[in-house]
Structure formats: structure tokens, C-alpha cells
């Protein structure tokens, strides 16, 4: 682990900009997101968590899969520089790994064809992710419920903001190579380790009561016909904001833009909350009611993904709570299914 003075932060970013496309938290409040930065001045280092998750760096909201002209198909060139992500929170770093399984890195079972997504893979395989510990988790955070935590180590590099400096530790070879580029860094020792422990304890104290989710996978399935789904659906306006803000939601649609024989095929974010998501050409809709769609969203997060990959598809980032226009709180939903007193 090394220590780098915050006064050297701009040198650090400048050093990377030549060889990497650098992404970092920018903007304020509801406009906050991960975006490409050219210098350290653009980075908002004071954000708790961005409202837009970093998933769009690897899985853009719209992405051209290929262009075509008669029989000629052109796949877009991969980015010329690898990505460097500064300041990803541990919850988001793990979210990327959860989506990575779906995009071909993991098999659901030995004979699963597990198609690899070349667009996602090309960006992620060369990317270097620096995770920044959360000194002050937001009121919407519940990462301790999902087995995550504000000081969990994830990504290629792990950093802690200790006031006047950052402490940075490399977790992978890719991370180590970046760390070696940093000049004017001093090694961190026992004093810093104690500092981290104290910050971690303080950060964890900001989180609310712990809820054990181990029963949730089966409970939600068993409560398929429970009126709770109707109660949630009665409040939900099917806007899909939760799915778009969610770092693990990855449903997509594919559409063509163009004229006869010439055009481009584009992948776009979609969401299981939209009535059209499952509507078939015949007019038949397997999930025609709002309650069906709400149930699908939560069952996918807490049961179905678990069936396929042995963990839940939520890392407690709390974005869905923050963006929901009708104040639906995933924590309240979860508590209701676990019979912990909570009205949706």
C-alpha cells in the first residue's frame, strides 16, 4: 500500500490520461455520473455515490453492434485505449462482476453455452478499476445486507481517502502496473492501517440495522400469490428508473436503424418493468399486469439469479431507492417478504 498526497492527485490523473481513457465521478446530485475526464479538476471527489452507475461504461445505454450495407457487415473497432476507472464504490465494482457472469464469463451449469459478449468483454478485459472506500455511506445504502460493505476490497486497486492523502493498494497485476507509475508516493505503514480501521468502523456505523437475506430466495418464490405484489404494483408507476439506475440490471433490446439493406443494429437498455418488454407480436403478454412485472424484477434479483449463479443480483447500492419517483424502497419490500414489520 502506498500513500499519495491529495496535492499530487492531479499529477496522478494526468499521468494516466495519456495511456487510458479515464472515467471518474462528475457532476452533482441527480446529474452525477461516471464520465470521461481529461484532468483531475473535473472529478467530483466529494460524492457519496453517483446516481448513474458505472455500468454504462461497459454496457452503454445505446451501443452500435454493427453497421451493414447490402451483405457487408462492419463491427465497430474496439476503443484504442484501455479504460481506467477512478473512484468506483465496492458495491459497483462487484455489480460489474455480477453482470460479467451473464455476459459470458460464467456457466450456469456445465453444458451452458455461455455466449461471450465481445463488446462488453473487450472493454472490461483491458480496464483497470480503482475502488474507493466509502467513508460516509448514504442513507439509501444497504450494502451490508448483500454481503458487501463500504470498505470491501474490489477491482484492481483499492483506495481509502484519509483526509490529506489517498492510501492505495493494488489487488491485481493490472492494478500493480498502474501503481508503479506513481511518483512521489510514500509507503503506508501501521499508522495508516490504524487510520483505515477507524474510518471503516465509522463508515459502518452509518449503515442501518442488518437484515439477513438468506431466507429471501425461497420466501419470495413461496409467496408468489401474496397480496404484497399487488400492494407494491399499486404504488409502482412502471417507469423503469430503478432498472436504469441499477448497476446490475442488464436487460436489453436490439433494434435496427436504417433503410432497406443499409443501416445499423443497435443494442439499447430495456427493463422488465415496461409492459412492452414481454408483449408478443400476437398481442399476448405473459406479464401483462404490473404485479407480474414487479414480481419478476424482485424474483430475478433475489431468486432466479441465485438459482443460476449462487448469489443475489443486488449489491445494496441504494440507487433504486434514490431515483424512485413514488418512494418505493427495496429495503421495505425485502422486509415485507421476510416478515419483518414493514408496510410497502
Amino acid at each position, binding site marked *: 500500500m502506498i500513500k499519495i498526497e491529495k496535492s499530487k492527485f492531479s499529477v496522478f490523473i494526468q499521468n494516466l490520461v495519456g495511456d487510458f481513457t479515464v472515467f471518474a465521478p462528475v457532476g452533482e446530485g441527480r446529474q452525477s455520473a461516471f464520465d470521461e475526464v481529461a484532468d483531475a479538476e473535473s472529478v467530483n471527489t466529494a460524492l457519496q455515490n453517483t446516481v448513474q452507475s458505472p455500468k454504462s461504461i461497459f454496457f452503454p445505454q445505446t451501443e452500435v453492434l454493427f453497421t451493414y450495407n447490402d*451483405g457487408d457487415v462492419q463491427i465497430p473497432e474496439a476503443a484504442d485505449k484501455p479504460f481506467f476507472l477512478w473512484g468506483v464504490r465496492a458495491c459497483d465494482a462487484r455489480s460489474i462482476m455480477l453482470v460479467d457472469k451473464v455476459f459470458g464469463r460464467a456457466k450456469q451449469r456445465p453444458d451452458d453455452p455461455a455466449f461471450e459478449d465481445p463488446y462488453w468483454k473487450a472493454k472490461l478485459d483491458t480496464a483497470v478499476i480503482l475502488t474507493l472506500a466509502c467513508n460516509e455511506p448514504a442513507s439509501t445504502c444497504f450494502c451490508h445486507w448483500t454481503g458487501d460493505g463500504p470498505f470491501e476490497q474490489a477491482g484492481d486497486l483499492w483506495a481509502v481517502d484519509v483526509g490529506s492523502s489517498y492510501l492505495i493498494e493494488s489487488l491485481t497485476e493490472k492494478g500493480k502496473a498502474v501503481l508503479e507509475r506513481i511518483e512521489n508516493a510514500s509507503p503506508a505503514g501501521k499508522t495508516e492501517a490504524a487510520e483505515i480501521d477507524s474510518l471503516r468502523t465509522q463508515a459502518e456505523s452509518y449503515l442501518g440495522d442488518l437484515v439477513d437475506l438468506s431466507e429471501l430466495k425461497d420466501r419470495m418464490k413461496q409467496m408468489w400469490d401474496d397480496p404484497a405484489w399487488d400492494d407494491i404494483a399499486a404504488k409502482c408507476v412502471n417507469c423503469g428508473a430503478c432498472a436504469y439506475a441499477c448497476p446490475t440490471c442488464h436487460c436489453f433490446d436490439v433494434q435496427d436503424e436504417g433503410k432497406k439493406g443499409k443501416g445499423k*443494429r443497435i443494442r439499447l437498455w430495456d427493463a422488465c418493468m415496461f409492459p412492452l418488454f414481454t408483449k408478443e407480436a400476437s398481442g399476448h403478454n405473459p406479464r401483462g399486469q404490473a404485479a407480474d412485472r414487479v414480481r419478476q424484477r424482485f424474483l430475478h434479483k433475489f431468486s432466479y439469479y441465485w438459482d443460476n449463479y449462487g448469489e443475489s443480483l443486488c449489491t445494496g447500492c441504494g440507487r433504486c431507492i434514490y431515483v424512485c419517483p413514488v418512494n418505493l424502497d427495496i429495503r421495505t419490500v425485502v422486509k415485507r417478504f421476510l416478515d419483518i414489520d414493514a408496510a410497502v
Partner: protein
Amino acid sequence: MKTPANPFRPIPATLEAVIPETDGIKSFIIRPEIPFDFICGQFAELTLPGVGEAPFAMASPSTKPDTLKFTIQKAGYMTEKLHALTPGELLGVRGPYGNGFAIENYFGKKLLLVIGGVGFPPAMALLHTAIANKDKLKSIHMCYGARSPGDIVYKDAIAELRENIQLDITVDNADDTWEGPVGVVTTLLKKDEIDPHTTIAVVIGPPIMMKFATLRLLELDFKPKDIVLSMERKMYCGIGQCRHCMIDHYFICKDGPVFTYDQLQESPDIWE
């Protein structure tokens, strides 16, 4: 090391022929630039450049990877555009996707197909394979239900099929030309003609038909593992990522479309 192929990239294919089947259904014969190896029951994503792509099951025999046949009902935007095409048009195809029918699992048994409406095209691919393996199956029996005599597809192939298999056809609504049985397809499933203990039943059709066919087969004492369902849900990507076709934790496109009923019977929404 093999570079991972881009699963979204279609293979150019030429539309060779368009065959009208019924009022709203046509068959399309396409020739992909490279042979398209598949097994019966699998499907492909068909591209119409400038319009989009959609999944359709191959209806042609898997022994003929050079030309593929798709039988398509005009139902939405994409299929409307497809129905307007004439031979010579450039299309695209990618796949094959899904698991398909494991014909070897049916060897030594009687094969019963319970088919509704436009379930006939994927059933046709299975029939081609089953007839080619006729000596390994005790018998092949297909019960097919169409809405009306005018909705029956592959009329020209029926006589030839009957040389190889027992084919019973019923219609929901008869007209003056119809001399066969009238009623839903389950009325063809007769207790004294079907032995549930030596038969594998394959069900393909619209959700409501599949539900009642499955219930009838269970009533006839079929074991859930001997009822094979080719499931339909709005599919898109074909590769188990876009999530449109999820039923329970399964992706119809990747884990199916062929399931046995014992895999799905605990899922509350399979007939939705």
C-alpha cells in the same frame, strides 16, 4: 486459440422462395452463405436489413443445412415486412440457438406429437428427424389441431406424411369442405389409443393449448418427465442475455426451448 465469435453477427442469406401456406402464413426458403448446421427444435434469428430481426424455428430437415425453411405467420411489424418480400432478397441469419429435441432420448419408445396451430413448423423439423430414425422408434403419431380447415399448414405434405406416421387432424371450426373431426386437439388424445408408459409426448403450440394438452396427458397417466414441451416466449437475443424470455430462472432461448414438464412444473407462470 479460437477467437470468440461475435454472436450478434448474422450470416448473409438469400431468399430463394416464398410459399403461401394459408391466408396469413407463408414459408420462406433461404440459402445462407455458409451451411447452417442445426438440430431439430432449434431456432434462428432472421434478419431483415433495415427492419430488424426476430426468432423463428427451422421447419426444414436438419440434414439439409444449405437451405433453411421458415414458416411464418404475419403477426407484427417484422413479419408483415417479411410477408411482402419476393425471392432474391438479401436477408441475414444467426444461430442456431436453443437445445433442440434430443431424438435419442425417444428411441425405443412411441413418439406422440400434440401440435396446435403454428406449432406445426418446429414439429415438421422433428418429424423429418423422427421419420429418418423410424426404425429406432416404436411408432410416430401426431395429433394436430387447427382453428379451421383454412388454417392448416403444409397441406401438400400431409399425404406423404401419412405414409410414415399416424396423423390425426382436428379443427375448432369446420366448414363445408371438412370431413374430419371437430374440436380442440386434446379430443384426439384417446385413452385406449395411447399407452403413457411406453410413449414420449411432445407438445408444441400456443400457451393455452400447451396447458390443456399437458393436463390431458397427465390425466392419461403420463409422467412429467415423458412430456416434452417446446416453449414459446418473446425471445430476442437468443443467447441468454437480454432477459425477455425468462420463465422462472430459465431462459427459453438458451436453456430451452425444449423442456420436460418435470423441469417446469414448479414454476407458477409457465402457461402465461
